[in-house]
């Protein structure tokens, strides 16, 4: 096994009285793609959002257990959530660019970090857009509104925006579920390139996609982590029957 980036220990989450994650233990390897799969409502998004503490925004959510990123528990009292989220970026299911220009969307993160120098911003914007494989499509229209881009371009712009603050971990919640096949394959290709530098955790409903892009796969069911392992193993030779049933589409 590779080096571990994120270590989850006994993570339990309740929404009010409702148990959404039950005692999750998981080790996510560094600079690899880990896919989270499982039927709707099993807690994939909830789990993903515990990794950058986005669940803090939901008043009814109560959490116990630990999430260690680089050996540091992010639920520790003296952890600065704002800093954490700079290190752990997130790409959402529905692309959500700000109604600003393409340039300003990518410059948003650096700007809130106090970077205002034109030259530096220009450079960050360019490298981020290049890394998100969208530079060539937008380089002549950086001042145009981001809302004028196609859905797939918007999503890659959102990825560029995430990259702009230089995180080490990128969380993606069904980043391609609203996209056409061509845009989807562009995103998948992109994920492939990004994993050289970033640890990626991706939620997907698409089994082929999980098989194509991920190195490791975690199967969730009813708030429990049922099985975790190398994607190849999970897809060809799962140890647990539920996993096999789900992957082969015989779920019930």
């Amino acid at each position, binding site marked *: 096994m590779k080096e571990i980036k994120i270590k989850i220990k006994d993570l339990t989450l309740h929404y009010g009285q409702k148990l959404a994650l039950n005692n999750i233990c998981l080790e996510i390897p560094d600079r690899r793609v880990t896919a989270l799969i499982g039927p709707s409502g099993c807690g994939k998004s909830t789990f993903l959002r515990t990794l*950058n503490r*986005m669940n803090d*925004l939901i*008043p009814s959510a109560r959490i116990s257990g630990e999430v260690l990123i680089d050996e540091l528990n992010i639920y520790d009292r003296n952890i600065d959530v*704002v*800093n*954490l*989220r*700079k290190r752990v*970026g*997130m790409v*959402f299911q*529905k692309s*959500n*660019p*700000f*109604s600003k220009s393409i340039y300003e969307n990518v410059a*948003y*993160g650096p700007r*809130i*970090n106090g970077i205002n120098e034109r030259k530096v911003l220009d450079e960050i914007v360019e490298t981020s857009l290049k890394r998100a494989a969208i530079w060539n499509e937008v380089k002549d229209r950086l001042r145009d509104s981001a809302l004028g881009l196609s859905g797939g371009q918007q999503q890659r712009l*959102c990825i560029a*925006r*995430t990259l*702009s*603050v230089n995180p080490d971990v990128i969380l993606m919640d069904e980043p391609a579920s609203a996209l056409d096949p061509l845009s989807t394959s562009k995103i998948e290709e992109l994920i492939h390139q990004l994993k050289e530098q970033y640890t990626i955790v991706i939620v997907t409903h698409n089994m082929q996609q999980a098989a194509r892009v991920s190195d490791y796969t975690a199967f969730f069911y009813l708030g429990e982590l049922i099985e975790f392992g190398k994607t190849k193993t999970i897809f060809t030779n799962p140890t647990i029957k539920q996993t096999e049933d789900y992957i082969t589409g015989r779920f019930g």
Partner: protein
Amino acid sequence: MMKTFTKIKGALIIGITGLSVMVILGIIAIILVVVIIGGKSQFSWEFLTSFPQDGMTKGGIFPAIYGTVLLVLIMSVAAVPFGTITALYLTEYAKENSWIAKTIRFAIRTLAVVPSIIFGLFGLGFFIKFVGAGMDNAFLGGRLVWGQPNILWASLTMSLLTLPVVIVSVEESMKTVPRELREASLALGATKWQTIRKVVLPGSVSGILTGSILAVGRGAGEVAPLLFTGAAYYLATLPSTLHDQFMVLGYHIYIMSTQSANVDQTLPIQFATTLVLLLLTFILNLIGVVLRSQIRRKQK
């Protein structure tokens, strides 16, 4: 049997709703026609830009227009920032069910149903007798400057009256900023305040403007709160400081139609003044509505 019954019921409902629409439109039409016919002979550039003459039986209404506009401006300067901050607290910071949020909301609702004359009495008691007189005693050795009706206290009283409307409409427009955008900002490591400043406020600024204009437009026609707080019967000069009294359109109409030496003779002036007040509120509302529809279009 059943079928004819539903048919009759349908026709009845259409008839009744149609009739009420007609009644409302009819009333508006009558008001407009009466006011325009009555005031037509007076309405002129001269009328808009000159002072009243001969015990207000002749001349124009410029001081009343000036006073109304000034009142509206000062009241906006007070009500809009204050209302925006309150709305900001309610939508972004207060927990939905905390007692403090509930208390504020209760206060806003109550404020919204208080009769406007009560605001006038409150302004007299609080701003003039308490704050104003207190300022005079503390800083001016008891010389009467702030402790009497003036345009500042009148505007502040008026801003209290419009505050509930401003708060509610600002809250509405802040709520239209999608949660996804707030999350996008927070997920990039923005603080809550940065998110508000760079995402929520820019996303609702036009809504804030619209709501404010509509609220203020409503305030512009009010008279009751001004009776005790600063509106004057007649002034030979325009207000030049915040502690001057002022003339105002609504009150001017009231005076002309009840206290004038010769009510019948000044009828055209009354109608023309009414027309000006209607136009003023109409223009304010129009700006508000146009702005709003443009925002709606942009949001799609």
